[in-house]
């Protein structure tokens, strides 16, 4: 698949005012090209409104939104939207069209030939895990919730958009499917290099998927930071509460055994034989869990690829990293 660069998205002092209330208040932040930015906050915090202003489903009252430096308000909304993928929780697949027709909506608008549209939908269904032979001719109602969500993603990707907007795209499916979908979204996003703005109210999802997290409250941006920094240094009491009292543990979920200050001086043979062998990419959170389960103080860490012994990880080190505010 063609590897293409995402676009930079910038909110510049964006405000959306309705007659009786302010939905978004002076929002400013920049999402670097090819990154995933998660907008998270309680309901009514203005995150969905902010998202919909990017493709002008909602027009801002004041301020500017720039994609690769160009003010979107100067563009024709119809042209703008064809360059921005949009995935919503309700999926919004057209029930009277087959999956192939749904995925081919934008190419059809762009005047592609039938053969080219068919080739493109085949090309799009595969990466989202839908076998084109089985699914192309089906109607949305013949698919499960998770499959529909995949088809929705495929449709949003149809025109190679440099920017994707997602509004709780995995909110309506069960936890197991959700985990898989999240992983697939991440993989597709990395493959395509698309810039993603992603709305959720689930802080765990935000930490798992985000390169940056924008925490919103009452239409205002409270904190904008990478997940690790957010967990280590919540800007205020609201953020601390929102990320949860277990934020230390969550942070361990972002750190890997390979990244810890391993003690390479300890001989591999001298390690407690009950201790599980950890790979360098194991998160400290998982490492902690297995070490507590086996009741060991230390565990050997090996390289993911060649299995080379790197040193031991001790509970004391994990505890130290949990406490560190760096």
């Amino acid at each position, binding site marked *: 698949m063609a590897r293409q660069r995402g676009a930079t998205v910038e909110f510049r002092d964006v405000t959306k005012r309705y007659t009786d209330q302010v939905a978004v208040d002076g929002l400013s932040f920049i999402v670097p090209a090819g990154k995933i930015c998660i907008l998270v906050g309680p309901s009514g915090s203005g995150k969905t409104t902010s998202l919909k202003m990017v*493709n002008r*489903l909602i027009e801002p009252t004041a301020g500017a939104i720039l994609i690769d430096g160009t003010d979107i308000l100067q563009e024709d909304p*119809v*042209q*703008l*939207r*064809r360059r*921005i993928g*949009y995935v*919503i*929780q*309700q*999926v*919004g*697949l*057209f*029930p*009277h069209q087959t999956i192939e027709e749904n995925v081919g*909506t*934008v190419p059809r*608008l762009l005047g592609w030939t039938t053969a080219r549209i068919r080739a493109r939908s085949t090309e799009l269904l595969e990466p989202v895990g839908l076998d084109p032979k089985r699914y192309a001719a089906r*109607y*949305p*109602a*013949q698919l499960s*919730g998770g499959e529909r969500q995949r088809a929705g993603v495929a*449709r949003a990707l149809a025109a190679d958009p440099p920017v994707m*907007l997602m509004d709780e795209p995995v909110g*309506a499916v069960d936890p197991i499917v959700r985990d898989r979908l999240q992983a697939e979204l991440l993989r597709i996003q990395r493959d395509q290099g698309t810039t993603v703005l992603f709305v959720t109210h689930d802080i765990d999802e935000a930490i798992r998927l985000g390169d940056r997290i924008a925490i919103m409250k009452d239409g205002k941006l409270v904190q904008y930071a990478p997940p690790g920094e957010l967990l280590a240094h919540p800007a205020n009491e609201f953020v601390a509460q929102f990320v949860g009292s277990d934020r230390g543990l969550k942070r361990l979920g972002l750190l890997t055994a390979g990244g810890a200050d391993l003690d390479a001086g300890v001989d591999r043979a001298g390690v407690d034989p009950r201790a599980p062998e950890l790979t360098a990419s194991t998160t400290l959170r998982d490492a902690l869990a297995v070490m507590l389960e086996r009741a060991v103080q230390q565990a050997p860490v090996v390289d993911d690829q060649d299995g080379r012994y790197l040193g031991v990880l001790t509970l004391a080190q994990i505890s130290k990293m949990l406490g560190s505010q760096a």
Partner: protein
Amino acid sequence: MRPDTWYLFADPAILRYFASGLLDTVMLSVAAIGVSLAVGLLFALLRLSTRWYLRWPAIAYIESIRALPVLLLIVYFGIKGSALFKPFLGDDFELSRFWAGVLGLAMYTSAILAEIIRAGIVSLPRGQTEAARALGLSYPKTMRHVVLPQALRLMVPAMVSQLTTIIKDTSLVGTIGVSELLRQGRTLYTTYFNPIEVFLFVAVIYFIICFTLSQLSRRLELGRAPAAIKDLQLRDGAA
């Protein structure tokens, strides 16, 4: 004791006489249905407009016209139709009784259809329009490719019941002198004094037309994945 007149219905001349009436009934129906569908769709879209200067006239038209009896509209156009159009179409213009009837029927039905169509459109989940717009479909394309194909299918039952009503209401156009089916029958029984037989015969013809139409509409409803639409809507609504 009334003489038995059933033999009349085997007479080719009488049958031709009824056939000409049936032809008028069918032509009136087809013309009125065509005009009212087009005008009804237009007023439905106008009523859904966000612009007040489009919406308000549409509301005024729909609400006032559907509060009037169809017969009143038909008679009005039968009497005043020609005078009404003369300022626009020249002094020689003469509105035929046939078209006066079509106008009366279509005016009333378009107001009813406008409401049926509007209800069908607003009953679609909002995600559908939003998804279409987000994909970069313009308003006309959103309507043509996404909203109307779904909404029209949902409207089929209500629409067909209204269209069969038109067919039956063409009998009112007989009052302004168009020789449709029922008027032909009336002329016949005033000659032979056999209203029961005539009404029975005419009723059977109306039944055959309307019943056939409603059966056809059932097949339309069962056409391309209608259950799929309802199913998805339920899920969308729940999400």
